[in-house]
Structures are given as C-alpha cells and as structure tokens.
C-alpha cells in the first residue's frame, strides 16, 4: 500500500503520468496495434491440443461406407423437394421412420419486423422434422444433435441425404450412450431458433411454434452440416455464433484431428493452413485468417445454424463442404466417416466440453491465441482512456492528485453544476433511444410518404436519425444556462471517457473482436478531442471515425479479405444491407450488436461530439 498512502511517491508518479501523458498514450496505441498484429505471428501463438480426456485418448475406427447410397438419397430428396416446392415433410418423416428413428415435426411461423431483402422473406412459415435415435446403452439424459438445413433450390441436398444415411448406419450400432437427434430445419436460422426454443420451453423472440412432441436429454453438443455437391475439395469449419460466442476450442480440435486422420483438406474462414510462417506471405495469410475471424465475430451474427445453439450452452460448430477447382477431391463416404468419428468421440464425453478455451482467436486451425494473449491488446487501448481521464482529473484541480497534500491546495474554483454533464448525457441517450426504436416503428409512415420499400425505409430512417444526431450540440448548448466553461467540458470529457472505458471493457469481455474494433477507431479521437481544435477538420475526422463509418470500413475490409473486392457503390449497398441484417438479427435472434451500438456506443460518441462544439 506504499504507493497508495505515501504522498511523495504518489506525487512523483502522478507528476510523471501527467507530464508524459500524450507520449505514453501514443506509445500505448501503437503497442496495442503492434501487439494485435503480432498475434498472428506463429511463434507467438500456441499449438492447439486436445484438453478433454474423454476425447483424446480413445481410438475410434470409422466404418461408415454408404456414401453411394447417400448420393442416391440426395437425388431422391431433391426430386421430392422440387415437387413439394419446399420441404418434403411427408417424405422426410417416412424416410426417417423407415430408418428406425422416432420422428416428430414442429411447425412454426414468424412475421419479420420488415421484409428481409437478402433472403426475400417476410412472412415465414415452415416445418422442422427431427428424428431421435434412442441410446441403447444409457438412460436418456443426454443427447447430441446433427442438423442439416433444408435450403431452397438444389443446395444442401447432399447434407440432408448424408444425415439420413448416417442415421441408418448409427441405428445399427450398439455403442451409443447419448440420444442422437437428427434435425432437418427449414428457413435456416429461423427454423433452428424455433426448434431450440421449443426444446427448451422458452420464448425470447416472440416466435410462434407448435410444442415439441418428442424430446431427448440435455443436449451436449451439436454439429451443423452444409454440403451441396457430391464431392468436395475441402471442409470449412465455422465457429462464430450469435453475439460473437464461440464453442469450446476442443470441438475445433476434434474436427482438425479427424481431418488429419482421414486426409481431408480443412480450412477455417475458407483459408488453408500454410507451413511457411517465417515468410511474409505466410504471416500475411495467418493475419488475414485472424482478421476475418475478428470481423465475423465482431458483427455478432450467427454464421451458421450452430450459432444459436451456443446460447443454450451447447457446444456447436458448422461444417461446410467446399467444392473448388482443386484436383484433390474427397468423396461423401469420407465425410460420413469424419462425422461418424466426431459423433463417436462426442458420445464418449462424460461431461460437457469445458476443459479447453472458450475465448480464442484462430490464425489457423492448428494454432490459437488465447484470451490471456489477446486481452493486453485491448487493455493497452483501455489504458489510454484511463490515462486521459487521470490527466483531466489532475487538471481539474482535484486535490487528491495534484497536491497530494491537501495543504498546499489553493482555493478551489467553483465546480461546474451537475447540469453541464447531465444535459448532454440525457440528450445523447434520448437520441440513442430514438435510433433504436424509430426505424422499425416508423417504417409504415416512411413508406407512405416516400417512394421506398419497407427495408429501405428502415435503413434510411436509421441513417437519417444518426445524421440528425450530429446537429445536437447546438441544441444542447441552448438548453444549458450560459456559456460552456472550460471546467464544463473537462468534466463532461472525464465522464465520457470513463463511460467509454467501462462500455468498451464490458463489450470486449463478451465479444472481444467487437470491443477491439470499436476501441481502435474510437480511442484515438476520443482521447484527443478538445473544443480548442480546428473545428472543421476535427469534425470531419470525428465523423470518419464514428461507429457508422467503422461498419462501412469493416464491410470493405471484409470484402477485401475474402478476395471479393467491391466498388464504392456496391460497398454502399452492402453497407445498407448489413444495417438491415443487424436490425433483423436483433429482432429475430436477439443479437445484441444493434442495441449496443444504438443505445450506448453512439450516445457515448455523441458526448464527445458535444465536447468538440462546446462553445
């Protein structure tokens, strides 16, 4: 406690921190960026290893061999799907029942808050079909799920067929200790959502669904399968779930181990692993893979059907078959064997996957960065905010820190009233509430008065409110009594800095990527803003680093990274659709990114905007 109680040493420390504040902040920022970029450098990452005993040591021999039959089934399924013009429920029920499963259906319907133009749906009505294979070896207390979405068109037929073939094969084995649920869901995530809510007796998103008739034990793990061609070149593992949640790393390790064993090419973020980490290309490749993961995680949406399982504490991942122009092809039997092996190992689990990491970034499938390694990058950014706050506190003439001795303190200047802080705080939060509520609620009015579709109306209203918020400082000033004082903005900035630090800290804990991206764009400008800077220039910089522009940059960077660069116009359209998807994800699945941005981050940014226009 020497530091906390000895006034002389404290004085020296605070003196140092205030004198060198700006250099320290700059160093911290650069260090954060370097640290983050260094995470992808292979010697700094850890080799992934299987932590779960139950899955590590046991050997499994894969015997699945009915790949050909699966392909035939896929054709049959495709024909029935075309005939039914959607999901061939009766055929599926019959097919599952004939394979000895207990089959149940669940119907659901959902009206979207506004039409989804990407997937062209508004009123969604569908049916989930699922069959339960009862475990012969154990009481029915635990279950595993294998799911395949029934997508429109001809895609994903092979996945459903492989699911059925696996069901038939699994039925004849005696070693199952967990019930296995085979789920074919319609309307991708909406179907999964309805099924999960039905299974767990919850209703958090206002979905209408019929109750489930059959049920197995508590679900331990889930695999989602997406497969659209008879042969594939590689398998892609998708981990990012709702709100940036990730499954236990052991699930990824399991997938990687079986890919190695069966000689299947495996990718993550669609990128193959490279072995030349010591070359510039090798490093760039790893960095790109990691950046893609960061961007996908930050957007908080579920990148596959597995993403919704994570919320129910079920470890889940999507496995996506990719068919590209490589010569080396893998047939469907091998994929079946891979799944068989994975499910058998999961079947051996004695408790939920919990041994390995939940917080990680993957620069490649065999390497990972754990929370202890990546958090410092964020910590360095958060420290900047705290240092600036400390600096302001000292300048505000707080006796506690300027002159640790209250004795030498001169007459305290009269402190600014609570109102100087409270007014901007309340007004910017009200704007945030408007940004959160109005777009969806005003769509009808907007459609009536302007020649736009509902979706466009929602997105454009959101952008309009966002822009209108920029006009606020003048109105806030009018509400305040008298001129803004020097003390006033300092107090406001102190409050806003601490607020932002707490906000970003909480965000980074739940979703590191989102917290980090927001921090790296918001911290520099918020740390340096004062009313004395050249107004026009700083205003432009501030707007360019505001949350909305961050989303825009992310869109462009993402497109660049997946090697599908877009022009400005296309980028703008993508940006609009990202906003509408964000709002839809919030309404449909409870994704928190949109409310977080609208209700907290944006108002916080507005407070700094207020500081810029203080006088």
């Amino acid at each position, binding site marked *: 406690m020497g530091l*906390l*109680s*000895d*006034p*002389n040493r*404290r004085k020296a420390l605070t003196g140092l921190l205030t004198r060198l504040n700006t250099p320290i902040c700059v160093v911290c920022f650069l260090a954060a960026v370097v640290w983050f970029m260094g995470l992808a450098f292979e010697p700094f990452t850890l080799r992934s290893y299987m932590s779960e005993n139950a899955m590590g040591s046991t050997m499994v021999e894969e015997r699945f061999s009915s790949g050909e039959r699966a392909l035939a089934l896929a054709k049959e399924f495709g024909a029935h799907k075309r005939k039914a013009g959607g999901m061939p429920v009766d055929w599926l029920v019959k097919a599952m029942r004939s394979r000895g499963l207990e089959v149940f259906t669940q119907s659901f319907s959902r009206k979207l808050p506004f039409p989804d133009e990407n997937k062209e749906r508004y009123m969604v009505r569908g049916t989930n079909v699922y069959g339960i294979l009862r475990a012969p070896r154990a009481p029915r207390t635990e279950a595993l799920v294998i799911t395949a979405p029934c997508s429109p068109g001809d895609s994903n037929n092979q996945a459903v067929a492989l699911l059925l073939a696996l069901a038939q094969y699994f039925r004849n084995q005696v070693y199952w200790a967990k019930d296995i649920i085979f789920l074919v869901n319609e309307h991708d995530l909406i179907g999964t959502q309805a099924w999960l809510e039905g299974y767990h007796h919850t209703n958090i998103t206002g979905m209408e669904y019929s109750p489930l008739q059959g049920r197995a034990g508590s679900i331990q793990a889930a695999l989602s399968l997406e497969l659209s061609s008879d042969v594939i070149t590689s398998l892609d593992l998708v981990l990012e779930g709702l709100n940036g*949640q*990730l499954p236990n790393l052991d699930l990824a390790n399991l997938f990687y181990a079986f890919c190695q064993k069966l000689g299947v090419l495996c990718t993550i973020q669609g990128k193959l692993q490279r072995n030349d980490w010591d070359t510039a290309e090798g490093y760039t490749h790893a960095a790109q893979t990691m950046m893609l993961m960061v961007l996908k995680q930050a957007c908080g949406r579920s990148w596959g059907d597995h993403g919704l399982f*994570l*919320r129910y*504490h079920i470890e889940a991942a999507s496995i996506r078959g990719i068919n590209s122009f490589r010569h080396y092809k893998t047939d469907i039997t091998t994929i079946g064997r891979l799944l068989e092996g994975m499910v058998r190992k999961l079947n051996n689990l004695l408790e*939920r996957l*919990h041994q390995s990491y*939940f*917080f990680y970034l993957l620069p490649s499938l065999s390497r990972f960065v754990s929370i202890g390694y990546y958090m410092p990058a964020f910590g360095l950014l958060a420290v900047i905010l*705290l240092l600036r*706050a*400390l600096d302001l*506190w000292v300048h505000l003439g*707080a*006796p*506690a*820190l300027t002159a*640790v*001795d*209250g*004795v030498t*303190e001169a007459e*305290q200047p009269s402190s600014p009233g609570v109102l100087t802080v409270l007014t901007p705080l309340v007004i910017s939060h009200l704007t945030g509430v408007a940004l959160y509520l109005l777009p969806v609620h005003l769509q009808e009015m907007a459609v009536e008065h302007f020649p736009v579709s509902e979706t466009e109306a929602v997105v454009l209203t959101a952008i309009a409110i966002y822009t209108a918020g920029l006009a606020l400082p003048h109105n806030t000033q009018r509400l305040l009594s008298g001129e803004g004082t020097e003390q006033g903005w300092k107090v406001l900035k102190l409050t806003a800095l*601490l607020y932002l*630090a*707490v*906000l970003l*800290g*909480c965000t980074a*804990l*739940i979703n590191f990527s989102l917290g980090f991206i927001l921090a790296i764009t918001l911290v520099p400008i918020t740390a340096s803003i004062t009313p004395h800077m050249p107004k026009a220039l700083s205003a432009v910089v501030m707007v360019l680093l505001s949350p909305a522009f961050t989303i825009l940059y992310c869109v462009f960077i993402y497109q660049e990274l997946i090697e599908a660069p877009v022009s400005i116009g296309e980028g703008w359209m993508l940006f609009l659709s990202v906003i509408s998807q964000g709002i839809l994800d919030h309404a449909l699945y409870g994704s928190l990114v949109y409310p977080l941005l609208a209700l907290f981050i944006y108002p916080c940014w507005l407070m700094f905007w207020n500081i810029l226009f203080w006088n």
Partner: protein
Amino acid sequence: MAAPLTLLLIVAVTIRAVLFRSSLAEIISERVEVVSPLNAWKRVVEGLALLDLGVSPYSGDVFHETPFMIYLFHFTVDYAEIVFMIADGITAVALYLSVQIYNKDVFRKQKYALESDRYPADCLELLRSPKEMFYIPLKVAMFYLLNPFTILSCVAKSTCGLNNAIIALFIFCTLKGSALLSGILLALATYQSIYPLTLFAPALLFFLQRLYIPVNPRRSSFWFFTLQYAFIYVGSLVVITGLSFFLLGSWDFMPSVYGFILSVPDLTPNIGLFWYFFAEMFEHFRLFFSCVFQINVFFYTIPLSIKLKEHPVFLIFMQIAIISIFKSYPTVGDVALYMAFLPAWSHLYRFLRNIFLVSCVLLACSALFPVLWHLWIYAGSANSNFYYAITLLFNFGQILLVSDYFYAYLRREHHLTHGLYLQKKDGTEATLVLK
C-alpha cells in the same frame, strides 16, 4: 428545506413506481447482487405461503427472515411495493434529520472552540461554514434515494431496505438523544441481522459525550450510564426475541435466521467475500474459517472505538461500512446505506487521496458484475473465478474508500490541533504519511 425534500421524495417514489410496473422489476429481483438468500422477496412469499398452510415457515431451508418480518408482510403483502417505498422514504427522512442535527452540533462545537481560540491561526480555511453545510442533509437524502443501488434494492423488494430503515431510525433517535428509543431500535436492528450489534459502542460513546460523562472506567457515572444503556438494549432484545417465540410458538427461527447468518450454509454467489472461500474449503475447516471471517465485522469495533471515541457519529459511519463489507450476505442495498453518508463528510474532500481510483473501481465493478455473471451462468464461457475476481475488486474499492475517509478524518482533526502547515524539526515543510 421541507419543499426540496418533498420534491425529492416524490421523484424517488415516481422512479420506483415506474420501475415496479416495468418488466425490469422481475429481472432485477433475480440478480444476486441485489438480493441475497436472507432478504429475497421470493423467499418471503414462500414463507408466507407456508405460514398460511399452518406449517412453520422455517421448515425447509428457504425462509430466513425474522418472525416480525413475516408477520409484517402477513398483513401487508398486498401492499408490499408501498411498504418498500415507504421504508426507503423513512430511511431518507431519518438520515436527513440526523445529519441536520449532527451538523448543528458540529457547528456549535466549532463556534465554542473558535471563541476560546483553540484552533491554530492557519486552520481557519478548514473550518466549516453554515453556507456549505446548509445543503448537506438534502444531499444525504438524495444520495440515499437516488442511488441506483437503493433503487435496485427497492425494486427487487429486498427486505434490506427495511433493515436500513431501522438502522436509520436508530441513528436518528441516538442523535436526538433518546437513549430509550435508541436502545430499542438498536435491539430491533440486531434482531434483524445480528451485525448492528457493533453499533452499540458508537451509540454509547455518543450518549456519554452528550451527557458530559468522561469515558473513564474508574468513574461510577460512566458505569452507571453504560449499564443503563446496556440494560435497555439487552432488555428489549430479550423482549423482542420472546415476542417472536410467542408469535410462532417455537424457537425454530433461531437456527434458521441467526445460525444461517453465522454459519453461512448458502453459497449462492453475491458481492461479498464469503461464498467463494467457503465453496472451495475443506469441510472440516469450515467452523474455523467461519469464525475467522465473522470476526472481521466485530473485531474492528475495538480499535476504531478507541481511536474515534471523540467522534461517535463518524464511528457509526465506519461501522455501517464495515458491516456491509464483511457481512456474510451483503447486497448493494447495504452499500447504499453507508454511501448515503458520504456528503456529510464532504469537508474531508481535500484530504482524500484515492477518490478517483476508488470511483473508477466501483463504477467498473458495478458494470462488470452482470457481464461476468452472464458469461459464467448463461454463456458458460467464463467461470466463477472471473466473477469472484470482480467481487474482490469491488470490496477492495470499498475498503479503500472507507480507509481513505478514515485517514482524511483523522488528518483533519490532526490539523485542527497542530496547525495546517506542519513543519519538520529542521524547518522544512512536512507531510503526513500513513504507515
């Protein structure tokens, strides 16, 4: 001053009424930071149901309120929300009046000391002016009523609010000078949650000071008054306990309330220090460690009473803070009670050293509690260590806050007797160091 207080009460009641009607109330009443197994409303309802069925409410291991509390709600269960709002109002008004009396007292003493030239000449800027003291009682009431912690606690219908009301009334009666009422209310507070027992010392010191009886064990008047006050206290404690026995016709409540508080069998996470340790520890050390942990609350009474025997009101503040940090099932409602006193010590501000650090820590922890709880319980990706780390940090912040105020108080007193500008023996300027 009545008008601002009324306005404040109206605002506070409105906020609470709105929150009671919103969907937030249900979420808040499930938060472990806001309700503990001792004071959760869910458990009160369960106890009432058992009572109505003619079963002892203490059968089973759910209900841990005192018999008085269950009979209070037996009659007012339909108006529970109003009861909790009134309790908060009573606490605020009692604190308001107490601080008003205390300030008058302080000012009077200061005037006498000033007239008899007891302060060193350079200390005049340390003296308190009526102008700055005028709004302090209102600020105290505001700190209590508008503190988010109090609001959460009230909306969750945590019976902590009622305990706070009793303690606030006790403080009011003590400062008012009524030994009888003070003793009875202290007994009631002790009966509710044991820990206010430690407030006996400051109350006694206050009365002794008020009656100009020196704290001297060789004087008979000291013993006479001490015994008198102790008799009131113990007598009313016996009467209250006896009454509880007659209300329920059994002694079931003793192990179920006091045994529960002292032996800490329920390890639901909360903002306190107990749960994690007791969950981790070997069963055969349990008795030893529960003694070690419980002794914390009571132990500090002795040194603090000796050090602060001239300043019983500050001692009350210190004791309440210590109770809320070291009690076995603390909630944010307990924290709110001692935080309400902070404006009363606003003149110590210039001597506080860590207030920036402490406020950052408390602010960050309050935000991190729900986040880490979510990660641990719902997402399953974090674990209890994460949550406990925040609990530790929160308590570290509280301890730092309390010790900072303690140091500042002592320092001001030191300056008032020795002058503001201290000099070392060699004539250079000296600084005070707490080691």
